[in-house]
Structure formats: C-alpha cells, structure tokens
C-alpha cells in the first residue's frame, strides 16, 4: 500500500509585502478595496461625461427625434422646456445632478421614464448575462481542463477548433440554429417566460423583474421550470461565445501551470497526475479566468443585443437599438450611461473577487 503524500497547495497564501513597502494598520484586502472604490468614482465620472458629450456632438436630441414632425418654432419651444437652449456647462451640471437623483429623464418618442426602462429591461439583460455566464463556465472550464490534460492530442485539437467555432460563430446565427432545432419539439424559443407565467409573476411583490427570482418568490416549481426552459437557448447562444474564450484561457493557463516548479515537485513526490491537475494546478489556472471575466461581461452585454432580438428577450440591448432607430437620444444617453455603470461596477466586483482568490493582487 502506497501512502499518498499530499503536497501543500501553492496558492493562495499571503505573501510577505515587498521590502520597503510601508505597513499601515489597515488590512491589505480592505485597503485594496477602498482604493478600488475610490478609483471607480473618476472612472464613472469620465464615462458619463463622455456619453453626455457624444450625445451633444450628434446634435440636440429634440431636433433629432422630432425634426420634421414639428415646426421650427415648436422645436425651439420644446428645446427650451427641456433646458437644451442653456449653456452646455449648465446642461452638464443638470445632467449630473439628475444622475445623482436617479432621474435620467423621459424618452421623447414614447413618454417612458428611463429609470423604468432600466428597471424592467435592464433586469432582463442582467438575467440573460447571468445565465450566459453560467453556460460559459459550464462549457469553458471543464473542456479547457480536458484540452490541457490531453495537450496536442486529438481531444485537444478538437476542443481548440470547437473553441474557435464558439467565439467565431455570430450569436444571431447560433440563436437561429438553436431555434430551428428545438422549435419542432415544442421547446420554448421566444420570450423570458410563457404568457401565463409572465402574467402571474407580474403580481409578485416585491417584484425584481428578474424572472427566476420572481418565480422563486412566487414559490411554484412549475413557473421556475418554465423560466429555466425559456432561458436555456438564449443562454447557450450567448454563453458559447464567452465559453469559447474561457476554454482557450483555461487550457493555456493550465498548461503553463503544469510546467511550474511546484507542480514538478508534487509529481516528484509521487502525487497522482489526476490529483496534481485538480488540486494543485487547476485552481491557480482559474485566476486569470476571473480577471478576464470582467472584460467578458462587457462583451456579453454587447452580444445581448443580438440574442435579445433573436429570442424575444426584451432587454436593454434590444431597447437601445429601438431608440437608436428612432433617434431618441435622451433614451440612448440614459441606456448607454446605464451600460457603462453596469460594466464599471461588474469590473469592480471582479477586482474584489480576484483580490480574494489571489493575494498577490492586494500588495
């Protein structure tokens, strides 16, 4: 009988601060988080300022949306009512104050408060991105691990090709194929839930507009299953895109980690290959994946536009497209600002997670 010698896991552990680094009384993780939070304020400020200026470069939103429908005199009157005849710095100040109050205005073309759009349609996009991320993890991480383990053999080659296919195939094309494949079997291919489910869940209080949470709050498993069924195809269509990126990332990181000294040491101590892979190399190989995840969230939000249109998933991407077509730049400004904020906050959260799993980041 061979007694297995377990090598200590190499990371994460708290490294000593570099020589010369000044120690403060504050724990490094807390200090790191406070610095990141402080940095997010100028980041968001720059983002909203750029959005504001871009929208003004295009022209005034009233003329863009209503030009041709109203006389020039009425257009001027509407601009005055909306404060668009005031000096740009004043408009900018009012815009920032509105943002702080959570007031992004009302759309010009269909009289809808933008905060309502963000709450209803924004929740749909967040839910879709969540499901897609789950699919990306489920596909990318295990398959990346298999590819690394069988490096340069048939499974690796096949999986690498598959990864390229995943992120090269247009989202709407994958969506269309899935719809055509599943529709004949009665699988739901449109909407976030069946009509009856949507009607019932509209009575949930408090209503989150995130279908799965509303279904759980309602408590009927039939509704939860219905929501999951509707989420499956859009999540696959959008998730495979990111799944392909994760697959290649996990593969390459795992291959590099397997070459490190501490893995060689583990092997020398007689640790079985499967254990070396799962206990020692794999967890460290995941750290870059978490880092890249922040960027992938922005990518998912962009891809959501096409997925949302294909699957009747009325999220922010689809709504943004509709308002762009109508040249409703008040709506566009609000939605783009929300996109920017979501991506900024998601990046912040990812930074925290990376700092938690990889102590090197904190120092």
């Amino acid at each position, binding site marked *: 009988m061979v007694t297995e010698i377990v090598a200590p896991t190499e990371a994460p552990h708290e490294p000593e601060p570099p020589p010369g680094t000044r120690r403060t009384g504050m724990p490094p993780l807390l200090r790191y988080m406070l610095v990141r939070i402080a940095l997010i304020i100028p980041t968001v400020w720059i983002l909203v300022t750029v959005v504001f200026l871009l929208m003004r470069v295009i022209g005034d939103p009233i003329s863009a949306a209503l030009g041709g429908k109203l006389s020039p005199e009425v257009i001027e009157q509407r601009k005055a009512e909306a404060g668009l005849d005031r000096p740009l710095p004043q408009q900018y100040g009012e815009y920032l104050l509105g943002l702080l109050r959570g007031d992004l205005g009302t759309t010009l073309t269909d009289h809808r408060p933008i905060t309502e759009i963000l709450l209803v349609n924004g929740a749909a996009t967040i839910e879709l991105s969540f499901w897609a991320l789950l699919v990306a993890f489920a596909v990318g991480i295990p398959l990346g691990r298999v590819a690394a383990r069988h490096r340069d053999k048939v499974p690796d080659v096949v999986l690498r090709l598959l990864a390229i296919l995943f992120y090269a195939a247009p989202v709407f094309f994958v969506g269309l194929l899935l719809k055509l494949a599943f529709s004949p079997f009665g699988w739901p291919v449109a909407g976030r839930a069946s009509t009856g489910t949507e009607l019932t869940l509209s009575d949930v209080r408090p209503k989150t507009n995130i279908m799965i949470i509303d279904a759980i709050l309602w408590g009927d498993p039939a509704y939860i299953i219905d929501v999951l*069924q509707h989420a499956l195809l859009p999540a696959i269509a959008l998730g495979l895109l990111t799944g392909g990126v994760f697959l290649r990332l996990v593969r390459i990181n795992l291959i590099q980690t397997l070459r490190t000294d501490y893995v060689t040491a583990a092997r020398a101590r007689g640790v079985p290959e499967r254990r070396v892979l799962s206990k020692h190399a794999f967890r460290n190989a995941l750290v870059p994946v978490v880092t890249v995840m922040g960027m992938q969230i922005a990518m998912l939000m962009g891809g959501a536009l096409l997925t949302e249109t294909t699957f009747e998933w*009325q999220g922010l991407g689809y709504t943004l497209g509709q308002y762009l077509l109508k040249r409703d730049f008040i709506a566009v400004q609000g939605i783009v600002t929300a996109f920017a904020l979501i991506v900024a906050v998601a990046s912040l959260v990812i930074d925290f997670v990376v700092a938690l799993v990889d102590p090197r980041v904190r120092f």
Partner: protein
Amino acid sequence: MVRKFGWALMAGGLAASLALSACGAGRPGDSTSSGGPAGTGAGSAPLIVGTTDKVVSIDPAGSYDNGSLNVQTQVYSYLLNFPAGSVTPQPDAAEKCEFTQPTEYTCTMKSGLKFANGHALTASDVAFSFNRIVKINDPNGPASLLGNMKSVTAKDDTTVVFTLNDPNDQTFPQVLVTSAGPIVDEEVYPADKVMTDDEVVSSKGTSGPYTITKYTKNQLAEFTKNPDYQGTYGAAKTDTVTMKYYTDANNLKLDIQNKNIDVAYRSLTPTDVESLKGVDGITVHTGPGGESRYIVFNLKTMPGKDDAQKLAIRQAMASSIDRDALATQVYKGTMTPEWSAIPDGQLGATTPFKDLYGEKPDKAKAAKYLSDAGVSTPVSIDLWYNPDHYGSSSAEEYGEVKRQLEASGLFKVNLQSAEWTTYNAERVKDTYPIYQLGWFPDFPDSDNYLTPFFMPDNFVHNHYADDAMTALLNKQRTDGDKASREKTLGEIQQKVAEQVPILPLLTGAQVAIAKNDVKGVTETLDPSFKFRFTSLSR
C-alpha cells in the same frame, strides 16, 4: 465519488424535468392552459393575441399609430364608433350626433355612463378629451386630425357642441372614430401633458369594452372585460384577452405555428403567411385592407423636358406595370392590385387605371405615349424606395417594378433606397424624382385617399395643384347626398388616372392567423380597420 454521483444525479434530474415539462402539455403560459384563475365558461376562455406592432402611448394625446390605436380600441369609448362590418359611424358613448348648423356638430350623450374607476362620464369629459389633444399637440399625437375643429364645448352634462371651420364636413363623424376620438376622464388625465402608460393603467380613466389589468409596455397587456360598457361593440365575448408584443415577426410566426398563442395579428411576411396556410389547426383569415402602395412622381424633378413629356412618361409607366405579378409573386396574395386612387371597397371606388392603361403591360401603348410626346427611349429614371418602413418585401417589390419597366425596353431604371428617417425627410425636399410611398387611412372614407394627396400643398409634396381638382375635392367633402358624392368621386378618380400624379399599385389586405377554435376573427377584419377583441371567442 458519492458526492460526484450526487451532483450528476441532481443535474440529470433537473435536465430531465425541464425536457419532460417542455415537451409535455400545459406549460403555465401555454394558451391551452389557463395560466391563472380559470375562465368562467367555455365561451370566455382566455385568449392570447400576438403582434409585432409597438405601442407609442396609450394616452390618446400622445399617439397616432397602429399599435397604440389597437390598445385604445379595446379600452376607450368614443362618441361614435363602427359596428362590426360597417364603415358608417354609429353612436357609442353618444346617443346621437348630427349637424345642427352647417358649422355646428352636436352630440347628445347617453346617460349613466361611467369610467372604469367609477367617475361619471359626461359631456365635459368629451370636450376635455378633444381640447387636450389640441392643446398638448404632441408630435406623435393626432392633433392634425382635428384641423377642421374650431372649438368644442360642453353645453350641459349630456350635450357636446363642435364648431367647425369648414361647413358640412361629411368626414367629421369619421374623425370622431379615429385616434383623436377616445374619451378620457378629466379628473385623472392632465390637461397639458401626456400621461405615461403606467399612469393610464393605474388611473382606470377609460370606459371601453375592456380595462387593462396587467401591463408591461410593449411586452404584455392583459385586458379584462368591462361589465359597464354599453357601446357600439356590444358586450365582449371573451372575459380576458392578453396581447403579447413580439420584437421579431419570425418568433410570432413560430408561436402561432406551434399554437402557443391563439391569434397572430400584424405583421407577418407574405412568405410566412403563405407557409402558415398549410399548417394543421390554424387558419389564415383575410379581410379588406385600406393600406395603399403607390409610386409618387415629383412633377418638378421627374424626367421630361416639359409637362407634356413628363405626362407621357408617367402614362407609359402606367402602361408597363403588371400589378397582378407584384401581388401574387412578391406579396403572395396578401396584397391585391389597386386600380384607382380610392381602393376597391371604399365608397365610389372605380377602376380607371385598368380602363385607361390595361390590366396587363401594353408595350405598344406605352411606346406610343412616349413617341407622341417626342420622348427618346430608353428613358432613364431614378426610382427610390424605402426598405424598412413598408415591410421587408419592399426591396423585392421594387426589384420587380424595375424588371417590369425595363422589360418594356422603354426604360432604364436606376433603383436606389434610403432608410426611413432620411427617406421621409428627403422626399419632401425634391430629392427623389420618382419614389415609393404607402398610405394607411386615418379613417375609412374615400376622401381620406384623395384630399391629402391632390389638394395644393398636399402631404406628398409633389407639386401637384389643379384648380378643377380642388373644386371637385371640396364638393365631395361637403356633399351630404351619397349618390351625388359618388358621382363626384368617380370624376376625381378619372382625373387622377389621366394626370397620373401618383401611380396606385397595390392595396394591402388585413391578415390574421388564428387557431381553428377561435371564432370572430373574420368579423373583425372589416373595412373599419379596427381589430376588436370583443368579437373574439373560443
């Protein structure tokens, strides 16, 4: 090992339950299941209607579009409305309406009317409803329809008096049935601004056959029967109807094909409609349509050295078009040939384009028009169309028009397109010499196909003005005698065909696809162009 097996078992169980319940019957939202409290009987089983139309605003002051009108048709009462199958306005909230003076149109209200919120509906609410539309004058609103209304006042609780600019306007009763006509509750609707949809729904300041009980804008709207409604449509046959809004016509098609919804109304592509005709368990219903498609000639910038040559080119084009091929090959029968400025089915409609230029292309006749006027051939024309406003088949339609014109050997067509916002702005600036346009009537009256097109400073902006035509148009609009009016309408149509300021091509049919057990669909696809949920039942 045991832990791994447990996870695998859980995942497998979840996948199996998802798959089984997906393929099985009775999903919560399936139109065959109730998805909530059951209906009160076989005749009142809930219905789901799907559409790709969008709602701009439920508030009548803020919208003038098909999607909004469809909701308004279900939830608001009007002074007058169209009963099923008729285009003659009948009393709805009014007891009677009549001209009491040439410029005075007086309506007497029914007594005891009330809004869904319990407030009394009086003549004051009616006057308020019309006045606020004019006052708000929203760019997306219907204020332009009330151009002939000088003022409106409530004489007492039951009498409303409209003062008109032009006397004896025979189209004014029709205007009361349009997007400008819904009656709102003055106690809850602001006089100077458009309400948001959520405010409209929660205020319940409506009095039509249905009230909205659940609403997510452009996603889902649940309509529940209003037991107090006493108007033209009669009591609703179905207690609850849900409107589901689609972003993509392909998804609407899949859902009606899989019978996940009961009715699909506006707008499937001709190809989709054609393919659904063969699906078991569903029926494609068609009804007379008022939507018109035509080619506009800019009389200033179109080819031709003088007016005579320009007219000859227009007449030669009229002799070279095969409308039947456009209707059957491009639109698969969802459109029909249009032979006059007034579509078939409307009061006084005739077929002068067929009579003058023939039913099929006539190359010899076309060539003679051109040679008589000294036009050298082939005539080069820039033909513009829009690919995103009149449906995805426009490109195919104008490809076919180009093919037909060039097949005559008399024309060389340079086909060009622009997206709608640019197109609509540029067409009124004389940018396009010959171009596509479509028309959906404001109300089902023949005048609505004439006055907006052929009066001086018309909406087409093609520089057409003819004193004799103006006199004829004014005559028919104020003529209370039906036979005499029909005669004038005939003269106008003949004149249009001779002058060809526009070339009518096609009339769109109304199309709805429904499950076989849904009744009343054909009844509501009538010339009033209002899709009434009250007619539908299972």
